């Protein structure tokens, strides 16, 4: 009897205390153009175990802090539910802006809408969503141009004839299809180069390794592997080394990660395509700052694309963390 009364009393006291406390959070953002820098910028990226996204997060945080803001970093690992929860937290924390790398071109639209409804300006980096008019800016690398650049370098390394395989990224990410189509548009001009296998490795090094082993078992006479990003390429290289076939089979990557640059230097990777992630992330934070202070991002279009740079044996010496002199 006492226990029930005590429990009821505890619940009652809690409810009274809660209603007494502040109800509701203000909408997180300052009005556009309120004139002052300062406040929290929340940075949400994909997977911090991937050096590309670590560079993205660190660049954004550093740039935000140098402009006078605080920053918090979160990662959603490609899961739209986790992304939605992190966005909720960004709103709760009264962020003045959010820099977001969306998990899913369709599935992330809901999360962006939540931020728009809370009056918090959103700046998308690295990947886009399939709806305009929600985010203030969408800054992406020009994946189509980068893919064409990479494929041309790949053909040069591999030669005009032979069988090859491809490792593609997570299908829900638009970049996976863009790069794959870009590769195909160049390679299809060489009718003697035949694609004999293509596997989804979800941007992941371990998966790239496993899929490469299977592809190699099925097609032992390939001359090249073209991968949608560097971790998958490095995974493939490990598999080829283990099979002793790294000399005959040429591998290409995409991203411009430091370990890819290392692999180019020691000859196991032929090239990679540098996405100017440091540049466009800095630019995103600067546009956020400009929007907060003046109400304008300073750039006319919402979708902005940044050209990629090819990195191979010739210029790898001047490579620094995701940037090149």
């Amino acid at each position, binding site marked *: 009897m*006492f226990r029930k009364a005590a429990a009821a009393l505890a619940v009652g006291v809690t409810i009274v205390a809660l*209603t007494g406390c502040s*109800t509701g959070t203000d909408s997180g953002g300052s009005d556009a153009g309120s004139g002052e820098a300062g406040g929290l910028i929340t940075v949400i990226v994909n997977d911090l175990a991937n050096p590309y996204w670590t560079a993205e997060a660190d660049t954004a945080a550093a740039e935000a802090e140098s402009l006078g803001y605080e920053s918090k*970093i979160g*990662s959603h690992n490609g899961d739209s539910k986790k992304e939605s929860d992190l966005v909720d937290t960004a709103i*709760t924390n009264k962020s003045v802006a959010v820099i977001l790398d969306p998990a899913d071109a369709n599935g992330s639209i809901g999360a962006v809408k939540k931020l728009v409804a809370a009056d918090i300006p959103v700046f998308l980096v690295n990947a886009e969503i399939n709806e305009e008019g929600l985010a203030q800016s969408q800054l992406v690398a020009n994946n189509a141009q980068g893919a064409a650049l990479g494929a041309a370098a790949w053909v040069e390394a591999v030669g005009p004839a032979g069988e090859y395989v491809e490792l593609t990224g997570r299908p*829900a990410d638009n970049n996976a299809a863009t790069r794959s189509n870009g590769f195909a548009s160049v390679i299809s001009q060489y009718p003697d180069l035949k694609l004999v296998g293509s596997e989804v490795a979800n941007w992941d090094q371990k998966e790239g390794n496993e899929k490469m082993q299977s592809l190699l078992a099925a097609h032992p006479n390939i001359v090249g592997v073209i991968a949608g990003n560097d971790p998958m390429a490095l995974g493939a290289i490990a598999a080829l080394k283990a099979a002793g076939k790294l000399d005959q089979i040429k591998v290409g990557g995409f991203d411009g990660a430091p370990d890819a640059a290392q692999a180019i230097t020691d000859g196991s990777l032929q090239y990679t395509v540098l996405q100017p992630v440091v540049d466009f992330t800095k630019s995103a934070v600067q546009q956020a700052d400009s929007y907060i202070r003046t109400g304008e991002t300073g750039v006319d279009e919402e979708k902005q694309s940044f050209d990629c740079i090819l990195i191979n044996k010739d210029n790898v010496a001047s490579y620094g963390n995701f940037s090149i002199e």
Partner: protein
Amino acid sequence: MSTTQPAAPGLLNRMFPNGFDPLAILLQGRAFFALIVIVIVFSLLSPNYFNVSNLLQMSQHVAVYAILAIGMLLVILNGGIDLSVGATLGLSGVVAGWLMQGVKIPELGVAFYPSVWVVVILALATGAFVGLINGILISKFRVAPFVATLGMLYVVRGVALLITNGLTYPNLSGDPEFGNEGFDWLGFNNLFGVPIGVIIMIVIAIGASLLLNKAPFGRWLYASGGNERAAELSGIPVKRVKVRVYVLSGICASIAGVIIASELTSANPTSGQNFELTAIAAVVIGGASLAGGRGTVRGTLLGAFVIGFLSDGLVIVGVSEYWQMIFNGAVIVLAVLLNAITYKPKQRLATPSAPATPPTSDRAPDTGVGAAAGKIAG
């Protein structure tokens, strides 16, 4: 009912008839006290934590895991485990998404656009069907629950990915032309300011509690979990109970899947990955025994809230994601340790007075004396 009370008679004696043992009280209500401690600590660390809006929002995050955990509780009470709930969650969302896109039959030249309630019922039926397969594998074919549900996890996840070919179904809000609007009502709306997901969680919790405490099925469940052989011999339809329990778990998973698809208005085939582990953690933190026969809905809810409020609190404060994983793991291990202490027979902690029943079996070390009566009271 008297105990030796030397110096403090009267009030204390009436409040705590079994003797005032602060350690025992702390242990019994450990999930509740843990929740209070978490709320206090994070309120001190961040001004954004303790207000109605954030608490409701964290509850909305918790709701999905809590619904999964209640289904998992039923299975664990039966002495089994269901590793496929995360995959079932994903498949139900995908089935809902597939139906919302319209079922097209090119040969007949028609496309069916089922209305939203039909979509929801079919999505729940998917979960029930997966649960049925689990139940039959485990009861009729005697496959170990861990193995059967692990296999189903891969099968179900593969089916979901096959249906969508790895992509997500966008745009589940529906189209007025086709009469199938309203799917996002679940995810986006509030009733009296409380998110619908939370209300569904409360309804399911009440339903499960009634099922366990008032219905014969509940008694059968606790009995067959505590000692299956004895239950069978006393006439309880143990196999039927098993099948039903997995079906219920599947339905809970599909409810959670529909809620998530509704919140995101998109159906992702990889949704729900590793959610089963969180559900199991919530059940364990709430005091249930993995060997079966012991656990309550209230404890499971508290366990889900402990995990959810802790995780969200760490994100609000801005702790690195890797520290979050360490904290969550530590909490789970601590919870299991405390469970082991509570259930050790030699340490007779204060349980409501009940005639001591003889030890039910030798198989599990944490099946203690006098446990059944105390825990069934919930």
